[in-house]
């Protein structure tokens, strides 16, 4: 925690009267004040609990097909109705939620690890290392990501990758294309942090570069990273749903919210059986919105400028 309090951005954020509280406590207090953030956290917890534990309480299994019972509207037995193979939609939405949430988290982890590492290296070493990394970032930021993801998705289809392995590739694909923004932010912070006194102290102690970066510089950029990570999960879930809707992301039989919504591509299902595609769409909506609420509240909480306005 000592390195964190050394960050001038965070310490100046603390008004003199509350000097004793750590920046983390302050940030948490701030987040707790935001009703929307509380709403977001509660919705996310519910979504996780329902998706990961809900299927254990479902009387149905995903493998029992009952075509005679297919395409039934919502009822007491099937709260959200059934699909064309007679599978329970509620159960499928929950299982799809596991996949979609997992895709969001892994994609975020990939993007955050690459982004913060490369950003830190660029900011710390400067010179030609920085130039090369920044050039790569410039190039990646100039390529529109959705069209590129669509091509990569169709390559996966052409290579006939089995659906079970495909989800992992999709996660990495989403992560690898979204790190440049974070890398730029982290680099900017590290550039100013490395000129400060505590880094001179680290220098005079003769610490290794890796220790300086991982123990002293990166921990000071954690606020940016956390905000970015929260918003990145939502973004990745949104992207995954678009790709899967086009049939280029997670493909059946693995259910995901996106590929469940693609049921709407069938005209009859679209017009007459909204229970097939509206529930997964609402789930994407609620989840992404909750991540945005929490991310926004965190950004306000960590941002010294916005706090002084209160």
């Amino acid at each position, binding site marked *: 925690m000592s390195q964190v309090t050394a960050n001038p951005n965070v310490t100046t954020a603390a008004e003199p009267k509350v000097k004793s509280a750590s920046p983390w406590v302050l940030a948490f207090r701030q987040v707790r004040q935001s009703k929307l953030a509380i709403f977001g956290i509660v919705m996310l917890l519910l979504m996780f609990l329902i998706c990961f534990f809900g299927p254990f309480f479902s009387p149905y299994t995903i493998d029992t097909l009952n075509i005679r019972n297919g395409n039934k509207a919502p009822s007491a037995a099937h709260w959200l109705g059934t699909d064309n193979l007679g599978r329970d939609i509620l159960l499928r939405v929950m299982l799809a939620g596991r996949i979609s949430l997992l895709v969001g988290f892994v994609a975020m982890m990939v993007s955050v690890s690459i982004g913060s590492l490369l950003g830190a290296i660029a900011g710390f070493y400067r010179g030609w290392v920085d130039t090369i990394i920044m*050039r790569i970032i410039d190039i990646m930021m100039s*390529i*529109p990501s959705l069209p590129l993801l*669509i091509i990569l998705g169709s390559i996966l289809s052409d290579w006939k990758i089995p659906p079970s392995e495909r989800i992992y590739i999709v996660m990495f694909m989403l992560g690898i294309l979204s790190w440049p923004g974070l890398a730029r932010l982290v680099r900017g912070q590290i550039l100013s942090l490395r000129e400060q006194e505590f880094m001179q102290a680290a220098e005079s102690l003769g610490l290794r570069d890796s220790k300086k970066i991982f123990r002293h510089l990166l921990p000071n950029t954690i606020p940016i990273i956390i905000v970015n990570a929260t918003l990145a999960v939502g973004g990745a879930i949104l992207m995954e749903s678009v790709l899967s809707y086009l049939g280029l992301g997670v493909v059946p039989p693995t259910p995901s919210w996106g590929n469940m919504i693609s049921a709407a591509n069938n005209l009859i299902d679209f017009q007459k059986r909204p229970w097939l595609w509206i529930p997964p769409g609402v789930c994407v909506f609620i989840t992404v919105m909750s991540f945005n609420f929490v991310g926004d509240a965190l950004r306000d909480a960590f941002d010294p400028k916005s706090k002084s306005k209160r």
Partner: protein
Amino acid sequence: MKQFLIRRILQMIPTLIGVSIILFSVFSMVPGNFIDSNQTISAERAAELKHIHGLDKPATERYFIWASNALKGDFGYSFQHKVDVTTVIDRYIWNSVLIAAFSMIFTWIIAIFIGVFSAVKKYSLYDGIITFIVFGLMSLPSFFLGLLAIKFIAVDMGWAPVGGMYTTGSSATGFAKVFDLLEHMILPVTVLTALGVGGLTRYFRTSMLDIINQDYIRTARAKGVKESTVIFKHALRNALIPAITLLGFELPALFSGAMITEKIFNWPGIGRVYLDALNYRDYFLLMGYLMFLSFLTVLGNLLADTLYGLVDPRVRLK
């Protein structure tokens, strides 16, 4: 200023070369091509066609051929449309620009008004509701919003056409044709506006909040200036300055075509053509379009930075 522009334009060159190399290597990973997917031609004819279009050469050689042609403004031949790539882009892009321009105008007007009012009445019930709606719109997948709009507004209510650009088989001309077009634009423009208004509203709210807390606003109020004048003349004008740079970032969005929205509403724009081209493995078209977009993005960034330097005297461009 001149130095800044020259340096930035020179920097664009390696970036665009890098983009083209990445894109070309991605495309060379795709197995098959347009000729392979056509099963009606004989093997000899296929080989001949491949030779004509240079598809039998190794990828590196193909890249240099493509790049040298691209420098001359020739982005290759679209197999699917049977014309040059530039012609295809020119034919469809204006349909995309049409809905993009309309939705951009609406987005900016709505975002400025909502953003300003939620900043003025910050933390009020109005601000809370607006924030909630704005975040909701930012979190909706574009295709889901499009589907909902078609289902409830077009199909169930019948208030707007389901899709397309003109009514099929309609031979209307003149004023009736324009009206038909406008009617078909309702849903796509609404959806695009709804998707875009969120981020911009947040932006205006934040920048208005910054300004309203400035001393000169307090001075204006203290000397008895009307509140509406304070907000719209003293505050909003200054809040708009940083927003001008956003116009630079909007440049690619204006021409890129909303891929998903155009597909959902069957709008004959460049975004939908791109998605279709994927099914036909029409590489030159895909490649040409992506290069065009990247070029616009790079140009938009330059424009944003330049505008920022022009409108804000505190920023000095070096």
